[in-house]
């Protein structure tokens, strides 16, 4: 590709530099100019994390050729405000809690800036339209919209209110609620400690780090869902100029198995692959592009095996088996009372099947990390929700004592459970051990979706038995969670699902069977709620059906069965403390129907047939 000279004016400073004619503005800003405040979430124009202003107009810098920006004015988050003098938008985001992980924040701020520059007093709809190209997975947008409104007001009142925002690391109450709050204690509304760095684009996410002598890593993945590996030939990859190291399972000095609960997943597949995207080899090279080319030069000979994608089928003995021990990774059984007898005699029995879907966490920051060798050990600066676990499995992989591996959690751009498991950590650590050089790896969005864990899809059969007044007497359920190729958190997810199978309802007789089952689907692991939300889709719909069947409002049927002191028998036993269910229900009812809900409301005033909670 030919090189061209670009003249860029970025945040008022003029730069003249040589770039590839196909380079994107995002590459140039981050890699050549070191302006890492502009984020890379997808490289496809979908997430808006890379938003910058070119001549005052919002563009996705990941799709914008640098040469197109030549001769023009570019504004990035670094040009918006300074530590001492934040832009009113930055202050408002901080004040209003519009910043959580902060990964979407730079792009969001610039989209808002472009809006306010042209329209100082936007309506809520105009704000929503202006930020419609910027995804946020953490905040739910409401606080972002109100922060933009807040900033618009501040700017109309004459600009900056710098003095209102405390300096970094100083906690100062902003909104005062009661005496304790006024002292800055419980109940005080305090700005996020690292918030200021996030609104300035100065927070260091893993992809923002770089070290002298650093090489870049890529992974070769299986295109097959289920296959035996006959042969791996890396010789052509090793011979490619610019390649620093190629590793396969054979290069793992210690234990080639990891997993937070069950060590059933190889760091690099040795003899068998169990899902599309399973890692087979990793390469470190002078550039990511060379590493990618090297991966394509690795030859792998597979012997394809029949695959299984349906967990019900996977439970049958004739299904393709992923492991010698069979496809059932975990089974939890809880039984109390006389379920069969009660069901046989109950006045009302309701039975349904529910299917929930696989969910991708879709944090805006893809997995990233750098492993840096130092005297006697390796330090990995990497996305993580679980540094101690990561460290122990990484040390075991190398066959090292735990003390030689350090895992430093970088600022994490959203995780939602998806960064509890190891992802690229072992590859960078292994490559750093082999090359003695810092190794950086960043997943592409496709890779992040293909190779990392998901929320378990559940197949739930559930039965409720009640009397004519709608009081539950017995319940039973069978739950099959598709945990995919490896266990990850599957056993824990189905344990939680069993413990919370029937939600906050008092049921004397119960039978629960939950299973985590292996298939050749993507791995399911931890995600917000850990199996509990899946169960809620079933028991809440059954509650509504029960209400309809016995002629009660959905709220009343819950009042009759909800946990209350002395009446709180969950599958795992009596719950004695922290029962807030009925109060929560009353508040929710009041929120839905202020005229009829709340204390002392007549339950019969809430017929609401067909209305779902």
């Amino acid at each position, binding site marked *: *590709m030919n090189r061209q000279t670009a003249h860029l004016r970025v945040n008022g400073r003029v730069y003249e530099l040589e770039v590839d004619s196909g380079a994107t503005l995002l590459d140039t800003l981050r890699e050549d100019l070191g302006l890492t405040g502009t984020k890379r979430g997808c490289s496809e124009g979908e997430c808006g994390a890379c938003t910058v202003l070119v001549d005052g107009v919002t563009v996705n810098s990941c799709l914008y*050729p640098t040469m197109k920006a030549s001769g023009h004015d570019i504004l990035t988050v670094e040009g918006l405000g300074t530590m001492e003098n934040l832009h009113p938008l930055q202050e408002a985001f901080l004040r209003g809690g519009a910043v959580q992980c902060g990964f979407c924040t730079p792009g969001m701020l610039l*989209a808002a800036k472009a809006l306010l520059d042209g329209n100082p007093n936007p309506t809520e709809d105009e704000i929503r339209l202006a930020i419609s190209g910027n995804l946020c997975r953490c905040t739910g947008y409401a606080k972002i919209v109100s922060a933009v409104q807040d900033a618009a007001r501040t700017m109309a009142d004459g600009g900056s209110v710098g003095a209102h925002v405390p300096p970094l690391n100083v906690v100062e109450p902003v909104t005062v609620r009661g005496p304790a709050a006024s002292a800055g204690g419980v109940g005080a509304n305090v700005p996020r400690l690292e918030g200021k760095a996030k609104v300035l684009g100065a927070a260091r996410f893993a992809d923002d780090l770089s070290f002298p002598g650093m090489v870049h890593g890529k992974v070769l993945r299986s295109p097959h869902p289920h296959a035996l590996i006959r042969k791996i030939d890396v010789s052509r990859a090793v011979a490619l100029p610019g390649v620093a190291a190629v590793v396969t399972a054979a290069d793992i000095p210690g234990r080639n198995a990891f997993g937070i609960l069950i060590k059933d997943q190889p760091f690099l597949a040795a003899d068998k692959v169990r899902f599309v995207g399973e890692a087979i080899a990793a390469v470190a090279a002078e550039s990511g592009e060379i590493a990618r080319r090297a991966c394509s030069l690795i030859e792998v000979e597979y012997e394809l095996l029949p695959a299984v994608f349906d967990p019900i089928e996977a439970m049958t003995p004739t299904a393709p088996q992923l492991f010698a021990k069979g496809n059932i990774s975990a089974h939890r059984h809880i039984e109390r009372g006389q379920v069969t007898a009660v069901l046989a005699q109950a006045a009302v029995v309701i039975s349904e099947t529910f299917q929930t879907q696989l969910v991708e966490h879709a944090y805006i920051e893809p997995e990233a990390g750098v492993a840096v060798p130092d005297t006697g050990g390796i330090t990995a600066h990497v996305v993580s929700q679980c540094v101690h676990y990561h460290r122990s499995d990484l040390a075991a992989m190398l066959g090292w004592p735990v003390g030689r591996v350090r895992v430093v959690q970088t600022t994490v751009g959203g995780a939602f459970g998806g960064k509890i498991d190891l992802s690229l950590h072992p590859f960078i650590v292994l490559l750093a051990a082999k090359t003695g050089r810092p190794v950086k790896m960043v997943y592409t969005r496709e890779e992040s979706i293909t190779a990392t864990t998901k929320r378990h899809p559940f197949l739930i059969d559930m039965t409720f038995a009640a009397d004519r007044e709608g009081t539950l007497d017995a319940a039973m359920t069978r739950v099959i969670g598709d945990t995919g190729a490896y266990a990850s958190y599957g056993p824990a997810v189905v344990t939680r699902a069993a413990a919370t199978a029937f939600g906050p309802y008092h049921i004397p007789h119960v039978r629960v069977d939950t299973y985590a089952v292996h298939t050749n689907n993507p791995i399911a692991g931890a995600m917000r709620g850990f199996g509990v939300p899946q169960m809620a889709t079933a028991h809440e719909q059954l509650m509504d059906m029960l209400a309809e069947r016995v002629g009660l409002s959905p709220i009343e049927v819950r009042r009759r069965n909800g946990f209350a002191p002395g009446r709180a028998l969950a599958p795992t036993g009596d719950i004695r403390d922290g029962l807030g269910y009925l109060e929560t229900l009353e508040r929710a009812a009041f929120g839905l129907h202020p005229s009829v809900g709340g204390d002392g409301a007549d339950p019969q005033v809430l017929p609401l047939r067909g209305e779902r909670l």
Partner: protein
Amino acid sequence: MAESADHALALLTELDGTGRVIAGGTDLMLDQRVGNPRVLVDISRLPEWRSIEHRGDRIRVGALCTHNDLATSALLQERAVALVRAAAAVGSPQIRMVATVGGNVVNALPAADTAIALAALGATAEVRSAAGTREVDLLSLYAGVGKSTIDPTREILTGFSFPIPGGSGFKRLARRKALALPVLNVAAAVWMDDGLACSDVRISIGPVAPAPWRALEAEHVLRGSVLTRETISRAAHTAMATAVCRDSIRACSLYRQSMVQVLVRRALLQALEGGCDE
């Protein structure tokens, strides 16, 4: 970076098949990453191909107009609302600021919103090469899904022209309001004779076929008749009955097919009532 139209063509000739035209680049930059990157000839700064003009009873739209240019054009708002709505529906604000209408057509994807609108407006396209300029029917540019008859290594799509309709409308169904490809999009344009009967009408639908799909039989129902809610409903039903929809990850064929009727009716009503939303 091309400095003039002639310069752009000279560069392409000089590169002899190894160069490629780039305008907004929002799709092309993705393609560059896979496949073989080629030398890019940037035409996006040529003002002569970025204007929207009234010419007699026609409107000419430069191929380098961005989606945002179309979405905010007063002339189009008044005379060709379908194109305004289609442009405003694409991608996100960031994409609309950069992506051009010419690119939307040259990319030849079956759901391209502005192409659907231009097809209903009966647009012709101007294509320039070193050999000169040719003017062709918009639909003749489609060679298959994602395949255009324009050779981007030698030719440049410079603009579109269409007869000003009596009214036009555009309706779109997608899972989200932003950053979502359409499940279905429909554009309609009507031309009236003096007696208020419909002298001509075009209805185009995507993604149904590799190119914007004309609902010819539905058009036939309307042509020559006075447009009423009743005739419009009949045309919408005909469109549904004759459309052959496919299953895709975004929607099943059955759902698409039933939505054809709804969207065709709404697009026609919008064309008649001028910008009204149902």
